[in-house]
């Protein structure tokens, strides 16, 4: 299902190219280096084990695009520490978004729930950036159509504040106070060829800086 998209002019691929590789923001400041990202994920993995009694019945579900590789990395770390396999999957939330009518139709991401299902399990949703909280709201709706977990928790690599809904994360990699005009960009080796979290000056509304405010930026930066 990962067809190489040719984001041509006027194709939805161009409008919502969530599979596209991102290049680092020009003029951005790196706030997490690759080794720091790895350390942060190790800590989150330990916190998950601590709070879920050793991670029994934990299912990690990443939200596309960059939540998915993060969920896989967390699962690998859980397996490493506890010695039992931790199931990981992905949960696409596109059909549950509350802003569908504001933009042209979006390309769907992939949903794959581990064979063991989510009924009665502790589901940990994984995303790269927590911003307005609307993505997580949509994810909770999507989840309830798939099954009935015993509990749902949220792990994010970066919490940049500016919540618009009563939602908070259970596991946070880094709290990053930002202004709403700034952009937070998460790059991961699996999708972008390198690991980094970058904060850059906004440019989408001012229009002065560059094209970084375009849809297709990673994380919640552009939302």
């Amino acid at each position, binding site marked *: *299902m990962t*067809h190489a998209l040719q984001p041509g002019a*006027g194709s939805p691929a161009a409008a919502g190219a969530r599979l596209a590789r991102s290049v680092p923001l020009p003029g951005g400041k790196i706030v997490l280096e690759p080794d720091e990202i790895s350390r942060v994920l190790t800590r989150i993995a330990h916190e998950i084990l601590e709070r879920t009694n050793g991670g029994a019945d934990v299912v990690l579900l990443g939200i596309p695009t960059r939540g998915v590789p993060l969920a896989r990395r967390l699962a690998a770390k859980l397996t490493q520490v506890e010695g039992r396999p931790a199931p990981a999957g992905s949960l696409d939330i596109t059909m549950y978004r509350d802003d569908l*009518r504001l933009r*042209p139709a979006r390309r769907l991401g992939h949903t794959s729930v581990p064979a063991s299902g989510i009924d009665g399990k502790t589901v940990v949703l994984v995303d790269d950036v927590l911003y307005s909280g609307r993505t997580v709201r949509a994810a909770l709706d999507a989840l309830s159509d798939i*099954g009935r977990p015993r509990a749902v928790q949220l792990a994010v690599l970066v919490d940049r504040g500016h919540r618009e809904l009563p939602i908070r994360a259970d596991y946070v990699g880094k709290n990053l106070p930002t202004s709403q005009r700034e952009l937070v960009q998460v790059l991961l080796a699996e999708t972008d060829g390198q690991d980094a979290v970058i904060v850059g000056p906004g440019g989408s509304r001012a229009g002065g800086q560059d094209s970084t405010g375009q849809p297709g930026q990673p994380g919640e930066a552009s939302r």
Partner: protein
Amino acid sequence: MKRHLISAADLSRDDALLILDTAEELAQVADRPIRKLPTLRGRTVVNLFYEDSTRTRISFEAAAKRLSADVINFSAKGSSVAKGESLKDTALTLEAMGADAVVIRHPASGAPRRLANWVRGSVVNAGDGTHEHPTQALLDAFTMRRRLGRLEGLRVTIVGDVLHSRVARSNVLLLRTLGADVTLVAPPTLLPVAVSTWPCEVSYDLSGTLPKSDVVMMLRVQAERMTAAYFPTVREYSRRYGLDAGRMALLPDHAIVMHPGPMNRGVEIAAEVADSSRSTIVEQVANGVSVRMAVLYLLLSGAGSALDEIGLGAAPAETQIAGVTAR
């Protein structure tokens, strides 16, 4: 993708692949405990059927309902059409009721195109006369890709009543766009005059073509549209252009047998072929729902058309003139 889906020729390669990829994701919904998505909540889809149909209408209805759209079914029998209401007046009535999409089947070729000029919503062609049936072609392509893993370079043989077949026309156009090689096999009387201008090969020898086919698609003999004698007898047609077990054995091992339905068992396809493991006929019906969900999602969920850059953030229904499909 444009705002309407009237012809398979409206779809670029990217558009067609986007629909197939979207359908692939939506096919999962059928396996879930809750087979419904909230995406088109509050939108209205009208099924406007001027011609008999079971599977297409039910398929569109199921697709729209799985996306939480409201569905209004309108069939010409027992409606004001029976009293002589014109297509335009019916369209204006639907318009006044606030239809976001109109799915139309009509015995006259070109009716959906006319309708698109009269309504503000999206128009989806569900079969117009002997012209086109684009969602059938999409679900056929989807079925081929699922079964055989690719479309590029696939050798597809379409057999039978091409003259009266909107399915054949849409399939030839779409499969060409997607890089498959199509061969039509039919008696000369059942081929359109202009078939030489179509992007496909033509043959009159079914047995000779089968060994070189990855897919064989049997078309229904449309007796209801036949106003003259196109072949001497049904038995002779069946012997020369029907697919029986003996002919099926000529196909390569991986090849699949398709039929858009409804079938005339014993005419164009033998019962044992239709029920064999190579036949995708039941699968095609299930895939039809996924593909139609994808089409409705891409046409209706966003602001305006799936790819209309002008429509970004604006109220599309008011700013676009019906029929002008900006790309």
